[in-house]
């Protein structure tokens, strides 16, 4: 036993060294590797080719982009970074994976899924602030170059010697689209029975055709741009199967202005859409590119208090300019008839839209307003109806019949009363806008005025409003329409979307308007 003692310390020392050395070495290695890990590229999210042009320290815009749009987006991104120095950080992946990521992380600026069915899902989750159409894709049959199996119509896909791949109708949009289209024509069951394999994405289908695992696959035409050995066969049965590609600015974006700038660039017909065409897509009808586009809006004066703030916010958010021309609608109509056509017209009444309808697309009714009798606070003259305005020695102000919708409407309302001539005897002034009537009431030069209830909204401390009973035409409807010739169709549509938004709705309501523009903003 005692002879062991001198031996032990030596052996122990020998044994200690190896684990200790290993531990120290592995820790040192970890430290070095962690340093290496953070020594990424000089600028996050930029390729070396564009690093010099991006602004120092600028946070990149984060774009969630479907893998299917990767090639075209990389091409556009290079140009965009070079031109504007805003670095872009692209997150590529499958559309549904990206959607899941951004739903959870609540971050990111833009979302560009493979087709707009994913945007619909993102909208349901309140993630989409603005939407920009980019392109359409057509469902076609992918076959090897030369079409060795001579596939020309749906019946050819049902032949015994043709192996067919499709994308899963429940997982991929192209599958869903094919099923919808062919179910309508009653041909789906046959094709389903003859489908050799279902894949989860459209690219997997194309890959199968490329490696020769199947003879044909149903894909989007744009997908085939990247496949040199394949060709597209447009079969008549699938002619109706089209999908849209659109990019969304996300509600999570902390820099909506830059995001919108990029989205406008992507969707500009002379910028991003050029690339989309090059990469095999059918580009959408985009606006022309403009660094800071300017649009003109003609609007009835009565609408100014309800829309002014919304438009200012829109300008700041989008980085655009909206030139507003507020005036009586008759004057605006006259200007338009003289050839001065704005990008959009927000009329005070449908009647004034009808007169210039050929210049505009389908108008959308946004709000309603009601004619009332304005009297001084406390109603010292005891006016209760239009009849009382016909009493002697009452100074009445109304809108000008030709210059504004309110005046026109007032005349129609007076017609209904049956004592128009008595009423008109008391009319001492006809103004082009309701605001002027309110000012004249306040200055004491009028005893009563017939104006919109919204005109009185800001003057509640000095004036009372008396409802006109029993005359239905005393109500005006305000439609908004986009000019057919506007060079900024998409931008004006977004302005309309802003006017239809919830915050704008509240402003209309507080100004005394009734809201008609229910439902989600339509884009087409």
């Amino acid at each position: 036993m005692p002879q062991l003692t001198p031996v032990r310390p030596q052996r122990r020392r020998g044994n200690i060294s190896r684990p200790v050395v290993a531990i120290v070495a592995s820790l040192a290695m970890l430290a070095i590797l962690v340093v290496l890990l953070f020594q990424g590229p000089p600028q996050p999210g930029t390729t070396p080719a564009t690093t010099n042009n991006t602004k120092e320290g600028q946070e990149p815009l984060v774009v969630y982009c479907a893998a299917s749009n990767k090639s075209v987006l990389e091409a556009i991104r290079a140009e965009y970074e070079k031109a504007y120095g805003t670095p872009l950080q692209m997150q590529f992946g499958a559309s549904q994976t990206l959607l899941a990521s951004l739903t959870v992380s609540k971050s990111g600026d833009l979302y560009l899924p493979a087709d707009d069915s994913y945007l619909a899902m993102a909208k349901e989750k309140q993630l989409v602030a603005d939407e920009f159409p980019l392109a359409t894709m057509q469902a076609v049959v992918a076959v090897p170059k030369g079409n060795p199996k001579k596939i020309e119509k749906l019946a050819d896909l049902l032949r015994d010697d043709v192996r067919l791949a499709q994308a899963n109708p429940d997982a991929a949009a192209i599958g869903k689209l094919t099923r919808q289209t062919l179910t309508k024509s009653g041909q789906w069951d046959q094709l389903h029975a003859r489908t050799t394999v279902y894949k989860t994405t459209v690219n997997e289908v194309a890959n199968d055709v490329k490696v020769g695992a199947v003879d044909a696959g149903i894909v989007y035409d744009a997908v085939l741009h990247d496949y040199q050995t394949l060709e597209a066969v447009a079969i008549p049965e699938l002619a109706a199967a089209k999908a849209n590609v659109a990019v969304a600015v996300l509600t999570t974006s902390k820099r909506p202005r830059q995001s919108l700038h990029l989205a406008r660039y992507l969707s500009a017909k002379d910028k991003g859409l050029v690339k989309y065409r090059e990469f095999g897509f059918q580009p959408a009808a985009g606006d022309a590119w403009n660094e800071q586009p300017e649009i003109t809006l003609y609007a009835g004066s009565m609408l100014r208090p309800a829309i002014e703030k919304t438009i200012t916010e829109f300008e700041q958010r989008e980085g655009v300019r909206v030139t507003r021309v507020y005036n009586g609608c008759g004057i605006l109509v006259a200007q338009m008839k003289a050839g001065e056509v704005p990008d959009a017209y927000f009329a005070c009444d449908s009647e004034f839209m009808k007169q210039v309808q050929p210049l505009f697309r389908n108008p959308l009714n946004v709000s309603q307003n009601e004619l009332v009798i304005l009297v001084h606070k406390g109603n010292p003259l005891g006016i209760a109806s239009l009849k009382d305005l016909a009493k002697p020695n009452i100074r009445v102000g109304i809108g000008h019949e030709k210059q504004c919708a309110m005046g026109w409407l007032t005349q129609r309302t007076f017609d209904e009363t049956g004592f128009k001539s008595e009423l008109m005897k008391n009319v001492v002034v006809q103004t082009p806008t309701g605001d002027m009537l309110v000012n004249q009431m306040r200055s004491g030069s009028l005893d009563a005025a017939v104006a919109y209830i919204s005109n009185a909204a800001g003057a509640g401390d000095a004036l009372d409003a008396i409802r006109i009973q029993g005359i239905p035409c005393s109500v005006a409807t305000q439609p908004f329409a986009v000019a057919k010739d506007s060079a900024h169709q998409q931008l004006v549509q977004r302005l309309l979307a802003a006017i239809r938004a919830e915050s704008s709705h509240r402003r209309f309501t507080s100004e005394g308007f009734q809201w008609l523009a229910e439902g989600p903003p339509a884009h087409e």
Partner: protein
Amino acid sequence: MSDQPAAPAAHRAGSDVPFYVVMGGLGGSYVVLIVLLLAADLAFTSPGHFAAALAKPEIQYAIRLTLVSCTISALLSIWVATPLGYLLSRFQFRGRWLIDTIIDIPIVLPPLVIGLSLLILFHLPVAGTNLETFLQEHVSIGRRPFRVTYAQPAVVLAQFAVACAFAVQTMRVTFDQIDPRAEQVALTLGCRRSQAFLQVALPQAWRGMIAATTVAWARSLGEFGPILVFAGATRMKTEVLSTTVFLELSVGQLEAAVAVSLLMVIAAMTVLGIVRLLGARAAT
């Protein structure tokens, strides 16, 4: 007469050939399969695609990030797996079965779920903030806030979350196979637990540790689902080779995808070869 002694010899010689044929045939079929797969890949791509892939700065960055992140997650895995494997192997305690089961979860769960769970974990609102925001506000590297989600640490974390489970399994089996008697003897001779572990158990577990590191590294290299969800596939930032393959596949660049896959094979063979060599030398 000569029957008796000759028979067993002839019998023995005749029976060994079928043995080698059957064993070699069964085992070899798998090797042949792998070789055929690689050969098919090689035939599908061309040196041109290979060179084109290697020349891209994004791919070069992806190679570097892959090697660095895999090695970090392998080292972290072995640091965690060795003590955990040892504890589970040597000690009986309440709730051990529960820990056993928990460790298996990353192995049985679909990898995408791990990524999603990490994403949720870092963005779960707790007391008006979340882990990601908290880290960004309170930790910084240089002058930049410390980001995990969609940044390089997310790559490592996603790899580690899965790879470590495999390392733990390996270490546990390693310690199970080492006779605890040597450690008990060391304890009776006056060693502390830590000494018994460091001086007796660990040197014997050396081969297992090399194996566990290798498994964790290889697992990290192939990891892709959780990275895609938790780290994204941002070029020059969080794109690793496995996500490159996915991205190339999803735009129909099969040749490029195969070229990158072969790059991964080469990287893996080189690194694993070096580790095995080092391990073998250290073990002798």
